[in-house]
């Protein structure tokens, strides 16, 4: 069956969030592995770091305000962990 549009949007949003946090907040590319083996959610933790940096509401979730910032054009230098 064709993917429902909402699922497609969600998939795109997740890809945006993951690549943004990998590029600028040092999210490890194998963070999913961490999810299964050690518990905790590295992606949510990094998302909180990003939301704190930009003065957004710290939810650990990719809410609309967070996605808006992630879509902005920007400098390629990471915000943390240089």
């Amino acid at each position, binding site marked *: 069956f064709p993917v429902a549009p909402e699922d497609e949007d969600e998939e795109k949003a997740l890809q945006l969030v993951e690549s943004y946090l990998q590029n600028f907040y040092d999210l490890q590319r194998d963070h999913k592995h961490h999810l299964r083996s050690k518990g905790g959610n590295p992606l949510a933790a990094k998302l909180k770091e990003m939301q704190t940096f930009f003065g957004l509401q710290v939810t650990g979730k990719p809410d609309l305000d967070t996605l808006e910032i992630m879509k902005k*054009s920007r*400098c*390629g230098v990471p915000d943390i962990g240089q």
Partner: protein
Amino acid sequence: YVFTAGNPKWKRNDLTYRILNYTPKMRKADVEAAVQKALSVWSNVTPLTFRKVEDKEADIMISFAYRDHHDNSPFDGPNGQLAHAFQPGEGIGGDVHLDEEEAWTKNGRGYNLFIVIAHELGHSLGLSHSNDPGALMYPTYSYTDPNEFLLPQDDIDGIQAIYGQSNA
């Protein structure tokens, strides 16, 4: 303002720069003017001076590049990542890379080259990203008319904390 981890800084105040190549989207003279104006943003408030060199290694090498340009940080095409720069140091240290696939301009359309280079030079001199939304070193792009641009106090405080105030 935030210093780059490890507080790297140039050990000399008299730095050199070189423009390795030019975007075809702007006149060469306009690229040069944007670079000079961006450098003066920082030299106006510190003892730093910048001298242009034509054909040898400079402290700050400025170039336009496509996608993978062999520094482990590939560009991503139009929009998204506009440019990046490296902290003070030998070799690639201090260098500024600009994504050639961006719509570079000298005005408010596309991405203003002066604003982006001025930001990247902050990295070249040892500053990291500031979380002050009004700072030049804030990570996301926002346009200011170059003729009205004044370096924000957060950035002045940061760069003077590294190099001191201007001798002028």
